[in-house]
Structure formats: C-alpha cells, structure tokens
C-alpha cells in the first residue's frame, strides 16, 4: 500500500501520542475561570468609550478581550489595563452583549499574580500587598499603616503629604488599628496566599 511521504524530508512529523492533548487555549482558560463568555464581543467599543479610566490604560477593555481571543498571553498579562481597572462595572453595564468585562479583568489579574509575570502597574500591586499585610496582622484594614507601608515601598514620601496631614488633623487616620480579637483565625487564612505567591 502506498503511504504519503512529506515533500520536505526535514519536516519531522510530531508524535501525537507523545505530545498528548494540547492544553486549553488562553481564551478557554479565561472563559472557564471568569465564567464569562466574551466570545460574543464584536468590538463595538462601548466599554472603552464609557470607562472612566481608559486614559490611564495601555489597551482599551475591548482590546484586552481581543488579545485574550488571540491567545496573546504575554501581552495581556503584563498590560497596565488589568491593574488600572478598579471593577466599577461601567463597561459591563454598557456592553450590548452583556459581557461581564470586569470579571475577565479579575481573572487576568489573578493569572498574572499566579504566573509571576512582570506586573504592568507595579505600584498598584504594591498597594494591594500592603493592604493584605494589614489584614493579616489585624484582620481589618489599618489605613495609616497601609499608607506608610506603601510609601516605604514606593519611596515617594512627599507625594500626597498634604492630603495625609489633613486627614490626620481631622482624625480620619487612626493611629491605633481596630483589630479582630481572634487574629489566629485570620492569619491561618493567609497561608494559602503567601504559599501561592512565594
């Protein structure tokens, strides 16, 4: 029986048995984790036009969806947009295809943290980490401690000093943190987090 030979002899036919099943695409992964079907997006750009923070983003929300659809993992996980998004859901409520775009952003942020890629807006992740340190210690957010820790990390002590002093003067920043009595119950919850990101 005649068997077809590849025209170019240097092409190695991959052994499909060895490779096994290909992993899911980025889009499938994000869809699964976010529970959001963004394949419906037809790039109308309502999300980008409505987003209050689009000026500070490197990709508009619809472009982020496109990057995910194209499987451009590196580009999308290292972009600024996913960190600038605060989850106000303006985009989600304006989307004519009712895609929960903010949920996609949530998922992409988590993936960026889990995969340890370079973070597009490092100061924002610094801030979130500072909040978590406070939560781990007291069970509640101690805002003065968070702001001081954040300043220590970013080294920008003078930035916003006037606002901070005004808040102190108005006694809006408590010196002593409000705390949970059973802090052990709280610190236990953080084991999963520090282990995952260590």
């Amino acid at each position, binding site marked *: 029986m005649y068997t077809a030979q590849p025209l170019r002899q240097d092409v190695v036919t991959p052994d499909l048995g060895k490779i096994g099943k290909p992993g899911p695409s980025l889009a499938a992964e994000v869809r699964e984790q976010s529970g959001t079907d963004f394949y419906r997006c037809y790039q109308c750009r309502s999300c980008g036009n409505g987003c209050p923070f689009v000026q500070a983003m490197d990709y508009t929300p619809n472009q982020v969806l496109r990057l995910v659809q194209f499987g451009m993992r590196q580009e999308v996980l290292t972009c600024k947009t996913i960190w600038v998004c605060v989850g106000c859901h303006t985009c989600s409520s304006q989307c004519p295809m009712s895609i929960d775009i903010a949920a996609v952003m949530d998922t992409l942020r988590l993936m960026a943290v889990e995969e340890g890629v370079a973070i597009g807006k490092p100061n924002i992740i610094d*801030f979130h980490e500072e909040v978590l340190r406070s939560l781990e210690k007291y*069970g509640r957010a101690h805002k003065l401690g968070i702001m001081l820790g954040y300043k220590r990390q970013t080294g920008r002590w003078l930035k916003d000093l006037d606002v901070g002093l005004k*808040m102190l003067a108005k006694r809006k920043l408590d010196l002593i943190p409000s705390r949970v009595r059973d802090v052990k119950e709280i610190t236990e919850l953080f084991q999963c*987090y520090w282990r995952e990101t260590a």
Partner: protein
Amino acid sequence: MSDLRLQDFSYFPGCSLATTAGESNRSMMQAARILGLNLIELQDWNCCGSSSAQTMCKNLSLAMAARNLSLAPPGRPLVAMCPRCLHYLRSTQKCLKSDPETREALEEKWGRPIYTDLEIIHFMEVLSRYGLDRLKANARRSLKGLRYVPYYGCTLFRPPRLAKERYFQGEMENILGALGAQAVPDALSYRCCGSFLSATDPEIVTPLVQEIIGSAAAAKADCLVTACAMCQLNLEMRNTSRAKIPIFHFSEILALALGAEDYEEWFVRHLVDPRLVIRKLAQAA
C-alpha cells in the same frame, strides 16, 4: 414581642465605617436609635476582603468574607452600609450556596455553621421596609430647600453577578425625598469615584473627581450625598477645583432630618466644611 424582634438586625460596619468614616457609622447609629431599629454589631467581624484580597487570591477573598458569615446568627438579617462590603458578603454567600464542599470545610475549620439563607441587605433596604410614611412621621427637621446630587458610586447596583438581586437605584431619592430634600438629577450620579486609585495614582483620579464635582456645581446643587464611605472620602480628598461642594454620607443627612443632636461631631471630620449648607437649612426652617 414579634414586632420587636422584627427590628433586630446584625450589623457589619466594615473597615471604613469603623475608622476613616466614623462619622457615617455614628450618624447611622443615631438614625437607627431614633427609629427604634436595633443594629447589633457582628461580634469580632473582620474585613470583607475588599478589592485587594479579591485581586491577589480568590480563596483568601472568599474565606475572609465567609468568616463574617459564620459569625452571623440566623433569624435576623445582616445589614451593611458599605456597598463594597455588601457586594463581597453577598457574592460569597452565593458562592458557598453553590459549593457545599467549601462551605463544610470552612464550617469545620471554625466550628461554626454558615447560614447560606441568611438575608444580607443594605441599610437603605432596612429603611424602605420600615416604611417611608413611618420615616416621615419621625422627622424632626425639614430638609426642604436642600438641593443634593444623589451619588451612588459604582457598587450598589451594578455588579452583573448580582444582577438578579435587589438593586438600589432611586432608593436614596425616595427616602430623602420623603424627608423634603430635592434631588438634582442632571449630575454624574453613577460615575466611579476612582476607588483605590485615589491612593495609588491620584493623578488619574483628580480629573475624574473634578468632573463629578463640576457637574454638581453646574446643576446648582448644594451638596452631594453618597451611599459609599470611600466615595465620600475620594470626592472630598481629590477635589482641587475652587468649587468646594460639601459631600455628605447618606446617613448624616438622614440622622440630621430625624433630629440627631451630635452632628457637630460628625461634621468636624469633613475635609470640606459643610456648615454653609447646614446654616442654609436652618434658615429655611
């Protein structure tokens, strides 16, 4: 007796109301006391997890909110004032309802049951159940002549995951309208205040806040009334324009109308002096 028990609620303050927005907490407690509502603070509550836990670790975020749910006794609704806390508590409850394995693991860890049928409601919902007519009957100061922008921020009704839950658009107008205040509809009531970007990237937030305040000034409003403590702080803190419009917590205006006397103590904590508006109200009365 049964009527008395109807007035009992578990209350989750959250980090903002316990600290930076203490004036919101205090005024809400005053309003509740005047109305005969018994808000019982959740014993040893912890932070709901907020955006930071949500961003960094899903399990952590779920567990933080779940611990609060495990502290709530059955039989009385759990009330929150902060929209973000409400959102995280509710979505966590929804999550645990559909994932009994995780719920059981957490119950075992803490040795406490988690009641997934517990009602979790916003303080405005408490008021609307109380009844606007009864509320009106309790008013001691008229809000007549107060032109305010009802500022909801983003979280109170928008999250799509909770789309089938009750939402609150128009509730503030119903309540404050019943007390005589006049809502100014043509300002940016739903534009996001900038959330945590106010702490990390003020240069992004300042122009947004300017736009919101500018819209209120153009609509000739006396003040903005916010449903969210973080919005209140951001709108005050990041307003660098000359138009210094006071920003009130919803609970402050409510308690004021109900005749609370300790309002000086709340208002000294504001970054924008609200006394002009209060004087105007007093003169109108």
